[in-house]
């Protein structure tokens, strides 16, 4: 069943198009990893999907509801984990969860139990009555997540939930996301960390400049750029090696030298490693070889380019 979809959604800020005819479909039980450089429109997409901001064209459907997708009835089924920490610092961890549980209509024992479960889920049971002011960054992030889980939503949107925290907390959060997936919750997860997406996403969507430029599973995306192979060879003296001869080997696309390491990019399956090694061994000693397979980061950089994108206030 389709939990959420966007069809031809356009969002402008003045003359700046932030979402450019975006089409996105999210099926129940999926974890969608939404990747994109700064300014790609990820947070605007989330805000449009949750009805926080209006859009100029297109359609958003939530839980099959086209006419009133952002009704309170649908909002009850969504949990939003914001990029910034948006908890109440003047309330204890437990009070924060009680606040949100109350807003989502939970009462009495059900509310009490769900608050307790949410605290246990994020590992904050022993800090239930403490103020978030005294929490570490990782603990605040976990509480930030717990606030979106108290009402057991069907669809959770997580906007860069692991920004700026230690590896232990990050790992804890990823394990929690996997647990949610096992429980059948649908998750839309945005992040800059490729390894997170590789670890948890069932499908990856890559966005840039307000458009979805590629989507698929991790393997499908890697195959799209698997037309290159990268080999790094450590040698005794790179200065001795005739680089022009290396570049003229069949299948070699690019040769880069960094100190005594030579990086050779060749077409996929060109089978030229033998010839490359023979050429190098004739002029210098080989200390080590490393063959890199493309990963999601390579896909991302290939599709979106390697230039820095310093767009202030992306969304």
């Amino acid at each position, binding site marked *: 069943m389709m939990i959420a979809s966007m069809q031809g959604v356009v969002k402008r800020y003045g003359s700046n198009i932030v979402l450019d005819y975006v089409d996105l479909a999210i099926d129940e039980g999926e974890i969608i990893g939404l990747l994109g450089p700064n300014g790609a429109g990820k947070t605007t997409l989330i*805000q449009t999907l*949750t*009805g*926080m901001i209006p859009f100029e064209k297109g359609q958003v459907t939530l839980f099959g509801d086209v006419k009133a997708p952002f009704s*309170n*009835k649908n*909002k*009850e089924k*969504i949990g*939003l984990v*914001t*990029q*910034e920490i*948006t908890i*109440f610092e*003047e*309330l204890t961890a437990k*009070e924060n969860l*009680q*606040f*949100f549980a*109350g*807003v*989502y*209509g939970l009462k009495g024992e059900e509310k009490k139990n769900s608050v307790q479960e949410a605290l246990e889920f994020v590992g904050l049971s022993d800090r239930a009555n403490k103020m978030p002011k005294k929490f570490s960054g990782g603990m605040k992030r976990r509480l930030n997540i717990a*606030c979106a889980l108290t009402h057991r939503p069907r669809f959770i949107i997580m906007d860069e939930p692991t920004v700026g925290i230690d590896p232990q907390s990050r790992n804890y959060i990823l394990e929690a996301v996997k647990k949610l997936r096992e429980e059948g919750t649908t998750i839309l997860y945005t992040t800059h960390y490729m390894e997170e997406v590789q670890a948890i996403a069932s499908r990856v969507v890559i966005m840039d400049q307000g458009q979805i430029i590629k989507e698929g599973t991790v393997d499908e995306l890697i195959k799209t750029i698997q037309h290159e192979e990268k080999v790094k060879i450590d040698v005794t003296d790179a200065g001795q090696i005739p680089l022009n001869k290396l570049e003229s080997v069949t299948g070699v696309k690019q040769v880069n030298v960094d100190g005594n390491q030579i990086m050779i990019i060749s077409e996929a399956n060109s089978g030229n490693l033998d010839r490359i090694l023979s050429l190098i061994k004739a002029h210098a000693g080989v200390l080590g070889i490393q063959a890199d397979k493309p990963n999601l980061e390579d896909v991302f950089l290939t599709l979106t380019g390697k230039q820095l994108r310093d767009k202030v206030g992306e969304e």
Partner: protein
Amino acid sequence: MRVISTMKFTFFRMVREYITLLLLLVVPIVLLTVFSFVLEGVTTETGEPLINEQNVIFVLVFQMFGGALAMAYIHTDFFTERKQRIYALPFNQTLYAFSIMVCGIVYSVLLGIVLMTFSEFVFGADWGNWLWAIYIIFLLALLSNIVCLIFTFSVNNFKIAERLSEVYGVGFVILAGLIFPVPGNDFFVFVNTYVNPITLAADAIYGMNQSHAGEAWFRSNILLIASGVLFIVMLILGKRKIR
């Protein structure tokens, strides 16, 4: 119902703002104490202990700053990063904003009542008709909260809204001649008779205590009508900012 469930937590947030408690409770208590020592035995022209007037004025002056908390919470919840979470919640955001305003007014009135109780039972200040005094304090708290929210909704920069709310409070304190005497010309007399919330509220309380009920009601009705008119202004401005 869901919005009502949040009011308890809004109240917790307010009560735990220790700086606000310091400024709106501890400082007035200390000042009331000092003034009560200084003015012991001093009477007005009519023979009333001056301490009665001073206590009324002090409590009313601090009500002028009672809108600060509500405006801070409205700003944080609707105009900073937290707005994403608030707008994703399944309740009426406008009602939630109202609930914050209501909590701010109730909190301000409660602090006023604490100060009233302190001044009457510790220093023997006579507030006269307590219900009437609480009603006037309520009107002043209502007006101050509405004015502060108008500032919040009408300027983009929250710091400017805060400064404007301080100008509102301090400005009327100065106009009332509480820091230094103001000229006795028509303008200042008019302002202090019909416009200045502090003098209107104070005269309403004195009037009722001196059995000039008609005048007391007249002054309080000016506060009530001003609150009503400004409430509509606040609604119009707020609707544009809060869906």
